[in-house]
């Protein structure tokens, strides 16, 4: 390798000024996010394709999973939108549960907290963003995420995930997936407006007899507050491969550190005692 890219690496790693967490939002205090209404999803995968095209993500190869019309399987470093496609026998009937899955852009995100390089940050739109020029591929975020969103690319060894179309948001455009969705199943906008709209939608569905409709991630779910990507579901979250109560494993580390350090300290003190006793006995 020529020295120049290495020098570039080093100067990238140490920017003149490091700002840990910018205030979320665009200054108006409004954070934008996704509302994915699965009752409108037709499983066309236009969002997957639009995401791949706009973000220039490589293909994942041709795989046959046997999981109905889902041959993508899961989110990954090169798949930032994934349409789950569940065929479910419900008594005599067959139901299709389709949902376009995406990074939840959590507040208090475990990937952000775990990232040892500071590559993952909250950008000026309030979204969780992986800086591709900083990530060194340690893989901690991959294990920290309870939704299995992040993956490590085989090509460059870095972690990648949905950026909530950072570049498009900068230009005042909605993300490619929301733009491409033909049924408005994926909606993008300020979260308060989306929440209001989503609650109305649930009430409407209930009034029409679909009483199993509910929102996932609009209110607190598991260890999290509301998620910046929330969903309208009509069945158990596990049917869509979402965790029932996602854990935030990096919360309450204090007691765990204390237990580890106290164990070590107690044994160290005991060793001092044993050494002293041994010396006194001349052994």
């Amino acid at each position: 390798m020529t020295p120049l890219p290495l020098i570039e690496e080093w100067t990238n790693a140490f920017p003149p000024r490091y700002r840990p967490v910018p205030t979320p939002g665009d200054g108006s205090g409004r954070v934008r996010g996704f509302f994915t209404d699965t009752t409108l999803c037709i499983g066309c995968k236009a969002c997957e394709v639009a995401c791949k095209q706009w973000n220039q993500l490589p293909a994942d190869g041709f795989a046959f999973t046997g999981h109905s019309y889902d041959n993508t399987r899961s989110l990954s470093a090169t798949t930032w939108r994934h349409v789950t496609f569940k065929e479910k026998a419900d008594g005599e009937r067959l139901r299709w549960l389709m949902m376009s899955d995406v990074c939840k852009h959590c507040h208090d995100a475990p990937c952000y907290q775990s990232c040892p390089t500071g590559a993952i940050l909250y950008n000026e739109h309030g979204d969780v963003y992986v800086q591709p020029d900083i990530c060194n591929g340690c893989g901690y975020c991959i294990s920290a995420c309870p939704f299995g969103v992040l993956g490590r690319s085989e090509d460059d060894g870095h972690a990648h995930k949905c950026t909530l179309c950072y570049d498009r948001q900068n230009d005042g455009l909605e993300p490619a997936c929301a733009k491409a969705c033909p049924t408005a199943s994926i909606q993008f906008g300020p979260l308060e407006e989306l929440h209001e709209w989503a609650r109305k939608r649930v009430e409407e569905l209930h009034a029409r007899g679909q009483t199993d409709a509910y929102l996932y991630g609009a209110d607190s779910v598991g260890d999290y507050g509301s998620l910046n990507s929330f969903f309208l579901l009509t069945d158990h979250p596990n049917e869509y491969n979402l965790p029932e109560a996602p854990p935030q494993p990096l919360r309450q580390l204090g007691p765990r550190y204390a237990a580890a350090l106290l164990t070590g300290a107690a044994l160290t003190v005991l060793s001092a005692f044993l050494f002293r006793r041994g010396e006194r006995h001349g052994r």
Partner: protein
Amino acid sequence: MAVESPEPRTFFPPSPLGGEGLGVRGPSPAEFTPLNPSSSPPRGEGDKAPSYYDVSMLKPPVWGWEIATYFFLGGVSAGAYLLARMAERFGGGREVTRVGAAVAVGAAVPCAPLLIKDLGDPKRFHHMLRVWKPQSPMNLGAWTLTAYTGTAFLALLREWLRGADESERPEWGRVADGLVVAVTDAAGVPLALLLAGYTGVLLSATATPAWAKNPWLGPLFSASAISTGAAAISLALEWRKDGRGREALEGIDTAAHLAEAAALTGYLAAAWRLAGPLTHGSQAGPFWGAVASLAVSEALKHLAPRGRWWSMAASVLGLAGSYALRWAFVHAGPPSANDPDAARWASRDRRSAGEMVEFRTAKDADHSSSSP
């Protein structure tokens, strides 16, 4: 839309509060009318646990043998360092201090290269130190390892420079020595304690079911570090046919093994069925091998006739057992995260205080997660 099912939502058991409880024990889907539409509990499919084609919702950890080896060597180094410092302060013999300082450096040297090799982009290893971010256990660990390696080298340098006869030392030499000791004790000892234990905390700070939020991993790795440090020093002393301080080291090793056994029991009780990959999954070999190896090591120390070779065998078994234990814990991550049942169980809603009815028993070695 809703289809009649004879049983009310079977994947949540009756509420411990009785009656309608928290409202999560629900009516049958047909009469299901949530009070709050946006937080209403969902329903399952008859008696089958809901799932998505048995695809796990988690991604497997990417850490391999490098990390397992680093966890072991970092523990040996930190343990030997702590014991060397205690031996100097409280009198375990000069040789324990010297050998301990050498073991601490010898085990610490391969750590950074192993960690760098495991990165997806190794030439960016220095990005670990571009921020100070202690809320990330890995960032804290990177800083700890860096600073600790410095103090370990300093301690070894001091041992190397110290002459046999300290009474001939000039005044400035004693002042300099005092300063160095202040650094190796006041800074080095807390750093070594952190290095010994943070690795367990790091594993517990992941969503991987076998590790997630388990409070016993830190104490387990801390105790294991002390025992391996004692075993490594003991082995080196025996090799050099120097018995002084060895009895204290054996006592420390035994105490650390007892703490390790307690932490391991706590881990298994807390993880319960999520410990499947360790207890009867793909890592059962290393795991039970480690337990047996540590037990035999203790038995040799206390039951075998006293002799140099028996003692060395006990130390080697202690070290091998601890390495196998780290190996099993690190390699239990991928099968655990890939197990859809374990992933669902680890992220179940505990407010319902219950169990999903259908939690399958072992399907195969790598997907086993039924209760041990």
